[in-house]
């Protein structure tokens, strides 16, 4: 793997000068780094052409067995995931969800990596991995509970080997590492994958997960979706070197893949998972992609980024490129797209109806599962809560004010 020269060196501060608000402070520049961007592993160009070169040959063999049917499957996954996501965004606007974190633009990174996994692999997502959840067979409506505000999770992580969404940035990379350490101890040949963002790469937890996974040779794949932004902060505010190069300092390989190329994401993730299974330890995959929408429905990207940027990425749309390839290679017919369109509509309808039908949680849910073994204080507070609730019933039943309790 080539190592790019890092950002320009800075002169050391001249002795005695105190940086301050005097305007003499050295400015930090992120000059011309873009020009030195490393090459991506890419198997499909934005125009939908297969790429064959020396750099990607090593990875291309991992998708040599992919049939036209598999390709249609990947396409279907991406289209349905996008449709689900669009529906969720619309539901948020209609007030049915409190918040939504859209994956728009990141479908290839998620479906490519998600479809590389085996059932017995274990996934540790962040909060935007709706496409990976789809690949794991988690019913998409289950993802909506926490965004609607009816639960703080919504599924059994062990049901599909898909852990709960993690909102605290980077935390889950350590859980993935520990889980992978357990897998290795058990002598199992499954692998673990942890998803996180470019912003998260700055967190201490992520650095510590790199250290632990390297030291214990844990079978874990770190899948960083570099979607260029951490809310309003561009990747330059997190790192001065391309993110995948971080791995080198910890002693394991890192690779940057075109995150809008589903085939390349599938290939590179399979390669990394194979390394993990073969006892070769962790890998960092940086999927270079773009968050086409807002960070979440609460965010206003017009405050910090230019429209042209999004437009330039629209030209690299992950779904469009696979469609072009499928069409050019006669792997589909009109019927396929029409059927998929109908399937999308049905999914949208199902999601809409499911969300609207989602009941508010029972108020006593507050006290459920606080402990596995129970706890006297929780029992006491639940009882007080029940008595308090009952006092309203008494009030309205009898038309009298409830007498003061608590004596």
């Amino acid at each position, binding site marked *: 793997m080539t190592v790019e020269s890092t950002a320009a060196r800075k002169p050391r501060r001249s002795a005695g000068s*105190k*940086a*301050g*608000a*005097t305007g003499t*402070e050295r*400015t*930090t520049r992120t000059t011309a780094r873009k020009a030195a961007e490393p090459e991506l592993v890419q198997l499909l160009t934005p125009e939908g052409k297969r790429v064959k070169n020396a750099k990607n040959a090593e990875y291309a063999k991992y998708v040599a067995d992919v049939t036209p049917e598999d390709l249609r499957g990947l396409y279907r996954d991406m289209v349905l995931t996008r449709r689900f996501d669009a529906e969720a965004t619309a539901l948020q606007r209609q007030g049915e969800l*409190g*918040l939504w974190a859209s994956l728009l633009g990141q479908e290839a990174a998620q479906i490519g990596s998600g479809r590389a996994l085996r059932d017995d692999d274990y996934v540790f997502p962040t909060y935007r991995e709706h496409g990976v959840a789809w690949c794991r067979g988690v019913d998409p409506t289950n993802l909506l*509970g*926490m*965004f*609607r*505000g*009816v*639960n*703080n999770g919504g599924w059994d992580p062990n049901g599909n080997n898909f852990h709960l969404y993690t*909102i*605290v*940035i980077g935390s889950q990379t350590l859980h993935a590492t520990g889980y992978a350490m357990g897998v290795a101890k058990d002598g199992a040949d499954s692998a673990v994958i942890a998803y996180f963002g470019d*912003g*998260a790469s*700055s*967190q*201490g*937890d992520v650095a510590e997960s790199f250290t632990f996974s390297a030291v214990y040779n844990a079978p874990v794949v770190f899948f960083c979706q570099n979607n260029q932004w*951490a*809310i*309003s*902060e561009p990747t330059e*505010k*997190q790192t001065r070197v391309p993110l995948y190069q971080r791995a080198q300092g910890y002693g394991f390989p890192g690779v940057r893949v075109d995150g809008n190329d589903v085939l390349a994401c599938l290939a590179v993730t399979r390669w990394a998972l194979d390394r993990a299974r073969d006892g070769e330890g962790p890998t960092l995959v940086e999927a270079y992609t773009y968050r086409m929408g807002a960070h979440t429905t*609460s*965010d*206003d990207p017009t*405050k*910090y980024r230019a429209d042209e940027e999004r437009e330039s990425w629209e030209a690299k749309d992950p779904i469009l490129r696979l469609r072009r390839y499928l069409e050019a290679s006669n792997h589909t017919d009109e019927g396929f797209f029409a059927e998929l369109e109908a399937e999308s509509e049905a999914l949208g309808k199902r999601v809409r109806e499911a969300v609207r039908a989602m009941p*508010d*949680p029972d*108020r006593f*849910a*507050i*006290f459920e599962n*606080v402990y596995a073994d129970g*706890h006297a*204080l*929780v029992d006491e*507070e639940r009882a007080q*809560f029940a008595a*308090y609730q009952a*006092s*309203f019933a008494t009030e309205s039943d009898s038309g009298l004010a409830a007498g*003061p*309790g*608590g*004596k």
Partner: protein
Amino acid sequence: MAESVTAKNLALAKAINESLRRALETDPKVLIMGEDVGKLGGVFRVTDGLQKDFGESRVIDTPLAESGIVGTAIGLALRGYRPVVEIQFDGFVFPAYDQIVTQLAKMHARSLGKVKLPVVVRIPYGGGIGAVEHHSESPEALFAHVSGLKIVSPSNASDAYWMMQQAIQSDDPVIFFEPKRRYWDKGEVDTEAIPGPLHKAQVVREGTDLTLVAYGPMVKLCQEVAAAAAEEGKNLEVLDLRSVSPLDFDSIQASVEKTRRLVVVHEAPVFFGSGAEIAARITERCFYHLEAPVLRVGGYHAPYPPARLEEEYLPGLDRVLDAVDRALAY
């Protein structure tokens, strides 16, 4: 407050914004640091426009790392700066908790007073905005238990403005809890006024029958409670603590000696919360004045619930009135 040419009607968030602006203008050593505080102006827009006017070297977008934010703020303070750092939401302060508790809080004592750490850690806190998990918590007691930290929380725009000035000027680290659900509440701010001491509680409503003590987001609720109780002929006093550490026990004591009953209201879980400390000390100080045990209203010993249950979890008008009735029934 008397009519003043310098008084403005500002939302609480905007009052903090103007206070930060004033601090940046008057002291070149003041720095703003945090995630998204620059162009975006913070997720709540509290730092809106500051980077535009003071530049990237004074208003600094940091990498996404809270331990890094507080740890480097400590270093900057050691070098003579006065950093004001923003933690995006309450639940995200914990990666920085180690730096705050083991370093920020203790360096002054360890250096035999030679080192001062004038760092302000701003934390939007509390619930009531329908957010997802980790966005609605009230962790003030976790910080109040640590010596070396000062902890304050304004309840209105004027206090937000002035307490921020005072927090920045303080040579001690201050954890500045901002009641996020009150960010949009407007109030009069007199930017030329002479503010009272940072850690002094304030009687915001005089009363004779019972004292309600609160801070931050719960002050407004307690004022509403007092208004509702007044309709039933009950005359409640409301005390806005403003500061959780140090805590102005003298003001609470004075009020309790007058009203003889005390109810403490906060959003944080009651168990081992700031209400427990208040109840214990006021019982020691006012044992013979009290007509009823000190009662507390707050969160349960349970994780902050999903948004659709937060109204059940958070102290509301009825729950506080219920406690008031119970205290008065003794």
